[in-house]
Every structure is written in structure tokens, then in C-alpha cells.
């Protein structure tokens, strides 16, 4: 089994960080990248996106508009930039030089640093993978010495884990979306394949509102993903405790989804939680689907 390296939340990145993002869906990539670039705007750093194809800057960054970012304005002011430098495999040769130059230019233009995201789509055995490896190797001294932080994006529908594993060693770790919520009892994270939320820890009267808020937002995203048959999925495999009040909230949400033709899916519900749902009749509520998690190894 592949050892998955520790994840760092994108909101915790700082200058010098050079992290790898292995993403499964465009939603995941855009979620991480949006926070990365918006945090840069907030931090006085220029955001530079090196795209794997020659597409207009406004189009490449259009996903930021959903976050309230005036993309045109930011590009015009030089706070955001797009460069199709990686549109051809040859772009990899001088990648370290490009980032060194861009970091210095950002500082010269009055910014506090540079945030760079790069995506390589070239794929193929042997030679090109080695080239990728070499160029990543050369990047490290750049991040070590200049006010720059970066994310290298790898589409996991293109690169498999066997290809990504050797690249892990050339980064400072992998980056993930920010936690939706964390307190001493509970953490809520977004999942992307399949889309939904993962709840780990305990839910009681102290943090049920955080769950309500996260579920509400996730349901809005689910609605945006598909017009009919909305499916909101909660991964509860690491949820050790949930009280009656919080379960009642899930039932309320399920009934609301059901009325709109949708479903709330609870995945990996622990046996003791299922018992509570059985005695309350909540295992038979329309719109609520309880799915078993995979068997423990």
C-alpha cells in the first residue's frame, strides 16, 4: 500500500513552501488554488499561474469569480498573472529560471513575494517523466532562497500514485483544501471524489451549529453540481460520537433534500450510531441513505 504523505492545509502555507497537489476533480483543484491565490492577494503577494495550455488569462482564472474576486481588475493591476510557459514540454527546461526571475520581478514591482502555481500535463513514460523529475529537483533551491511559495498540480486522472510517489520527495509535502471546521472535538473537511464532507471526531451540543453550517454550504454546492437528484454525502467513518440533537439535524436536512428530489448519504456509519438511528426510526426517513463503510482490514 502507498504511504500517503502528511497533508498541509493550503491556508497554512508560507514563503519557502513547495507543495504538491494531487487532485481528483476540477472542483478540488479550483478550491485549493482559489484559496492559495486569494490568500496571496491578501498577503501582498503576486499570484502567477503557469498553465499547461495557451488560454486567455481571464478564462484561466474565471473560477475565482465565484469567490468574489474581480479577476479583470486584479490582472490589470498586475496582482494576478497567467503565463502559458508550460504549454510545451520544453517549458520544463528552464522552469527554475522562470520562477527565480518572476520572484525577483514581483519584489521589484513592490510586492511582498510571489505565489506560483504550475501544472504539468505532459505525460508519458521514461524521458518526459524524468524531465519532470529533474525540473522539480532544480526548483528546490529557488524556494529555499527567495520570497516565493508554490503548488505543483498533478491531475490524478493522468498521473497514478506510482508516478507521483517519487515526486513527493522533491516537495515539502502535499497540500489539501483548508479544513471547514476544527475544534477540540471535531474536524470537518471537504472531500472531492466523491464530493461531500468528512466529519471526524465527536458532534455534540457545542459544535452542532458548525456541522449545520458546513452541511448547508455543501448542499448549496451539491445543488450547483447537478440540477436534479442532489446528493449530499457525509463521510462518517471517523465519527466516534454524535448526539441525538445532531442526528435530528441530519434528519431535518435529509427531509429537506428529499422534498427537492435529493438525498443525504451517510457513509460509514458506526454500529453504535446506527443503533441510535434504529431506535428513533431515523434509519427509515425518506431522503436519508445509510451506506456501510468498507470492511476494516
Amino acid at each position: 500500500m502507498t504511504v500517503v504523505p502528511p497533508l498541509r492545509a493550503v491556508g497554512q502555507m508560507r514563503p519557502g513552501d513547495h507543495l504538491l497537489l494531487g487532485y481528483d476533480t476540477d472542483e478540488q483543484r479550483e478550491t485549493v488554488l482559489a484559496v492559495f491565490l486569494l490568500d496571496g492577494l491578501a498577503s501582498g503577494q503576486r499570484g502567477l499561474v503557469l498553465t499547461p495550455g495557451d488560454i486567455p488569462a481571464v478564462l484561466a482564472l474565471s473560477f475565482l469569480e465565484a469567490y468574489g474576486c474581480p479577476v479583470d481588475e486584479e490582472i490589470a493591476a498586475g496582482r494576478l498573472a497567467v503565463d502559458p510557459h508550460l504549454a510545451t514540454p520544453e517549458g520544463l527546461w528552464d522552469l527554475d529560471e522562470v520562477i527565480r526571475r518572476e520572484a525577483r520581478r514581483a519584489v521589484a514591482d513592490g510586492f511582498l513575494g510571489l505565489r506560483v502555481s504550475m501544472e504539468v500535463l505532459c505525460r508519458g513514460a521514461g524521458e518526459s517523466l524524468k524531465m519532470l523529475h529533474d525540473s522539480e529537483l532544480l526548483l528546490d533551491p529557488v524556494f529555499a532562497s527567495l520570497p516565493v511559495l508554490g503548488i505543483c498540480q498533478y491531475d490524478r486522472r493522468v498521473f497514478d500514485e506510482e508516478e507521483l510517489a517519487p515526486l513527493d520527495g522533491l516537495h515539502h509535502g502535499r497540500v489539501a483544501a483548508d479544513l471547514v471546521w476544527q475544534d477540540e472535538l471535531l474536524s470537518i473537511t471537504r472531500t472531492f471524489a466523491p464530493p461531500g464532507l468528512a466529519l471526524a471526531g465527536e458532534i455534540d451540543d457545542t459544535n452542532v451549529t458548525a456541522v449545520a453550517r458546513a452541511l448547508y454550504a455543501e448542499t448549496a454546492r451539491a445543488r450547483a453540481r447537478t440540477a436534479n437528484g442532489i446528493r449530499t454525502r457525509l463521510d462518517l467513518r471517523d465519527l466516534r460520537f454524535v448526539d441525538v440533537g445532531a442526528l435530528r439535524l441530519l434528519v431535518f436536512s435529509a427531509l429537506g433534500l428529499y422534498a427537492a428530489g435529493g438525498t443525504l448519504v451517510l457513509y460509514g456509519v458506526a454500529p453504535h450510531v446506527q443503533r441510535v438511528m434504529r431506535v428513533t426510526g431515523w434509519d427509515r426517513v425518506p431522503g436519508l441513505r445509510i451506506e456501510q463503510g468498507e470492511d476494516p482490514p
Partner: protein
Amino acid sequence: MTRTEFVHQGLRYGSDDEFLEGTLEFVHDGLAAGDAVLAVVRRHNIALLEEALGRRSGDIEFVDADDWYLRPSRTLGQYHAYCADHGQESRVRVIGEPVWTGRTEFEAREWMRYESLLNVAFVHSGHWILCPYDTRTVPADVVRSATRTHPELALGARMSAPSGHYADPADLYAERDAARSRAPLSDGPDDIRFARGRSAAARRALAAYARRSGMPEQRTYDMVAAVHEALVNAVRFGGGGGVLRLRSDPDYVICEIVDHGAHNSAVPVRFPGQLPPDARSVSGHGLWVLRQLSDLVAEEIGPTGSTVRMYFRRPGEFTRPPAG
């Protein structure tokens, strides 16, 4: 014989023949009417019915009473779930023979209360529950109590008469409460003070106590869930906090939640947590779950505070000898 309203009958029997005389036609009538028939009786009586019914015995569902009558509230919940599953299109007929041997006085009292509560829980259901009492083995006072908890007594095949002593469930409920020892637990080394926002610490301490007391893992989860609901109620209605006392006797782990709040929730509930709340109702699930997950509950909820005491049976054989 078919009836359409809810029927709850006691049946006293003193021999195999009397048992069959009282139950066989009940089953046949039910099958003829297309009713769902469930027989929760002692193993010996399952064998009797199976033999007497022959190949028709496959049309009814048998459950060993020893596996079904484990905890009064849970049994009521199980009947409720069974009727929800089977009673939508047809009437449900139940032969329900509670287990009375080997019960302490407290347990027997709670099972009588359970028999009485069936009259409230199923009053609108149209189901038919027949409860056999074996006069050879069931203590005489328990047999007598059947006339108070059942509006009717079955008298052999297809015959019945008013029991004559039927007590209103609310009266019997109050009477059982009054018969209970009211002495609260004294302070002890395992007491846990709790307050708003601090129930996680109480859950942690409780789980550790349960493990030290040898409770199985899954039962510990139930304990934590049940006690948490009592804590939440105490915080919400009982003045924001209280104390959780933990004790073990040879048979039970006992969790007592005491608060000193006013408990002025809108309307006093008649049978708190005893009747299944509608899945969609706003409140009432906490107390219901608390009862469903614990073995026995004794609670007093009043204007100057409340005490909820939950009993969780410890694993292994009971220490007391089974009563004859």
C-alpha cells in the same frame, strides 16, 4: 373472532393444554384474517405451538421470550418497530409472554409498568396483544397484577371478560414511582461535575469508568450516548449543570444525573421517554433514546431539580439465584 380496535388481554394458564387452548384459535383467527402474527413466548411454548400448528407454523413469526424481554423500554421499542414494519397494511397479533422469573422487585415493577404502558403506546393501533401468564412459575403477585395492566382477560378459546381491576396507566405509573426508593446516591470518588459545553469531559470519564467496570465496548457506546442525553437535558432544563454519579453493584453499572434546576419546560410530559416520539417531532427523542439504550431507568423530574438514574447490566451471569 375478529375485532378492529386495540385489544390487550392477559391469559392465565396452568398447563400446556390451557396454553394451547388460549392461544391456538387466536393464531388461526389471525391467519384467516390475514393478520401478521408474532409469538414471543418461552422456548417450551414455541415447541407446543409449532407442533399444534403443523405446517401453518411457518406463517407466523416466533421469537424466544428470553431473547426479547431483556429491557422493558427496549422491548416496547422493538414491538413498536415491528408494528411499524408489519402493521401498515394489516393488523398485528402478538402473543407476548414476558419473562418474570429471576427478576428483582425493582425489575418486576418496571415490567408491570411496561405491561401497563402498552395500553397507551398502541391505543390507536388496532393491534391485538395477548399476554400469557404461567400460574405455575410466575409469582402470584405478578399474576394478580395482570388484571390491573390488562383491560381484559382471555378465558380459553375466543372468550374474554373485562379484567375488573384495570388501572389507568397514569395511576399505575404514579404508583410505581411512589413505591420506589427515593434515596439519591451519596457523593463518591467517581462523581463528575458537568456544565454547559463540558459534556465531552463527562463522556470521556464515563467511558473510562465503564471500561474499568468491564462493560463491553458496544455497550459502553450505548452508555455514553444515553448519559450524554441526560446531561444535555440537565444543562438545558436543569439550570446549566449538575453532577453525574457513577456506581457499580454486582449486576449493574449505575449512572445518576442530578441537577437542581426548575425544569419549567412547557408542559409536563405524562410518560417521559416511554412512548416512541414521531421521527419528525422536534423534541422528545433524547429521553426516548436514553430509555432505549439503558436497561432500566428511574427518574424524578420536579420543580426543584431532577434525578435520572440509569442502570446498565454488567456482563456475565446474574449474582442472585433465579427465583423459582
